[in-house]
């Protein structure tokens, strides 16, 4: 198996962009990544494009705009893990020796989608969905139990949102650049109790892209290649084997496999982008990703360990909560942020001497399973 490097990254600004079509967003990000890599469109041998609501063969429309056509091109859907799934597939196509250079794009336009202004609906015929389940409710059930059984307060959870909104203010690509107080977060409109509006990620339009190459080829283009040290993707197990809804077994297993593959441990991680679709998720994932023992996660946020300037900054981009969550683009956008961190290009969000970074996404609801898909990537320089 060959080592795979990321040599170019690009992103659109995230936000509500109803005047822009999905393929335009995708093309902007893809072109930015191609330019950043210092390659020409002709160098790209294959592509994966992740999208949920943009219609058929969107990857062809995206890359057709920037002079990439007539190559192997696969469109991918895997809910919130779609972008990370595309990266995983591209990683393998190079690691296996099939190709030497490829591009990964994640793109979503929620405001031009058929579900604009609504919650992401459950699949037709999904039993729990028909009985009134939705994405927010699923995590509200987790949060209710988490707060009551483990004695975690709403203030602790709101603090995650305070932190990530602060980081978003420092990120020019972020949808929200506004500070919030704990009180503002708690007193915002209830969505599914105890989750209030400002504990939820927004609906977002945006795209992100990365160019990958074999490590050998990467040397020709950059002296700062970022290496993909681990790439792991898993689907959710049956819920009847899921003991405790406040602990994501699939995230835990996926992270363990990723650490093993990278030959690294949680103590080596300098910066992490994780799936904070709801503020409570970030605390939960600290434990599952191995950053602390169960029961210590509140301390990480209270003591500032995961803030910028702390020992392990988490969601420096603003996370899904502030930077936004264009579903299929999120997994790729996390990689863009971490590559900037590893190259020392993260501006006001820069973490000093970042060497190892971890990205985690999870998503997709299916009755009877823990969740749809989870992915963990570890990057190093």
């Amino acid at each position: 198996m060959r080592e795979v490097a990321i040599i170019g990254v690009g992103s659109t600004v995230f936000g509500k962009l109803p005047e822009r079509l999905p393929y335009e967003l995708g093309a902007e990000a893809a072109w930015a990544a191609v330019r950043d890599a210092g390659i020409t469109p002709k160098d790209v041998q294959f592509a994966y494009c992740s999208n949920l609501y943009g219609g058929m063969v969107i990857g062809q429309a995206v890359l057709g705009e920037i002079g990439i056509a007539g190559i192997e091109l696969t469109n991918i859907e895997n809910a919130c893990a779609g972008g990370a799934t595309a990266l995983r597939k591209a990683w393998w196509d190079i690691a296996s020796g099939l190709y030497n250079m490829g591009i990964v794009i994640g793109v979503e336009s929620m405001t031009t989608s058929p579900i604009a202004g609504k919650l992401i609906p459950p699949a037709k015929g999904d039993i729990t969905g028909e009985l009134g389940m939705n994405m927010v409710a699923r995590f509200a059930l987790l949060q209710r139990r988490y707060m009551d059984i483990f004695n975690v307060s709403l203030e602790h959870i709101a603090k995650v949102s305070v932190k990530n909104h602060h980081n978003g203010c420092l990120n020019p690509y972020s949808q929200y650049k506004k500070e919030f107080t704990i009180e503002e977060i708690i007193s915002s409109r209830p969505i599914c109790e105890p989750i209030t509006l400002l504990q939820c990620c927004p609906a977002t339009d945006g795209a992100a892209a990365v160019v990958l190459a074999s490590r050998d080829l990467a040397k020709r283009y950059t002296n700062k290649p970022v290496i993909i040290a681990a790439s792991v993707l898993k689907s959710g197990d049956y819920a009847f084997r899921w003991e405790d809804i406040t602990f994501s077994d699939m995230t835990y297993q996926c992270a363990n496999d990723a650490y093993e593959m990278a030959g690294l441990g949680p103590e080596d991680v300098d910066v992490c982008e994780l799936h904070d679709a709801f503020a409570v998720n970030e605390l939960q994932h600290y434990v599952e990703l191995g950053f602390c023992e169960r029961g210590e996660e509140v301390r990480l946020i209270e003591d500032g360990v995961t803030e910028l300037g702390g020992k392990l900054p988490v969601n420096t981009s603003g996370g899904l909560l502030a930077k936004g969550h264009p579903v299929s683009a999120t997994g790729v956008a996390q990689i863009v942020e971490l590559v900037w961190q590893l190259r020392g290009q993260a501006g006001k969000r820069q973490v000093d001497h970042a060497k190892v970074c971890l990205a985690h996404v999870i998503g997709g609801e299916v009755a009877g399973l823990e969740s749809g898909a989870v992915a963990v990537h570890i990057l190093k320089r």
Partner: protein
Amino acid sequence: MKTRVPFKEGLIEEVSGKWVLKGCRCKQCGQIMHPCREVCLNCLGRDMEKVHLSEQGKLYSFTIVHMPSEHFNPPYAIGWIEIPEGIRIFSQIRGWQEHPLEIGMDMELTIEKLWDEGEQEVTGYTFRPSVRR
């Protein structure tokens, strides 16, 4: 009077005038499943027996939803009920305005209208806080 139709086939059934929650048990590994399957999703055994699930359980978690869904207007309550067989049933929760919900409280199965669909009354299972008599 409206006709009652089950919300989905195979989830509940009428046994001598009384509606019960239907499940099945794998004779090989003992796994209980709701809804039933032909094949055990735990051990892939093919010998499944029909069982009637407990009508009592404990509230594992709950939420009051303030967004509309396809069939329900806000606010409505949903939750997971852990039944003695060791599985969790996802359900609409009724009676929450009269009896404030709390994790661990005793809940009981009720069969009632979920929503109207034209001339039909879509019927299914819900859970309510058990009221000690």
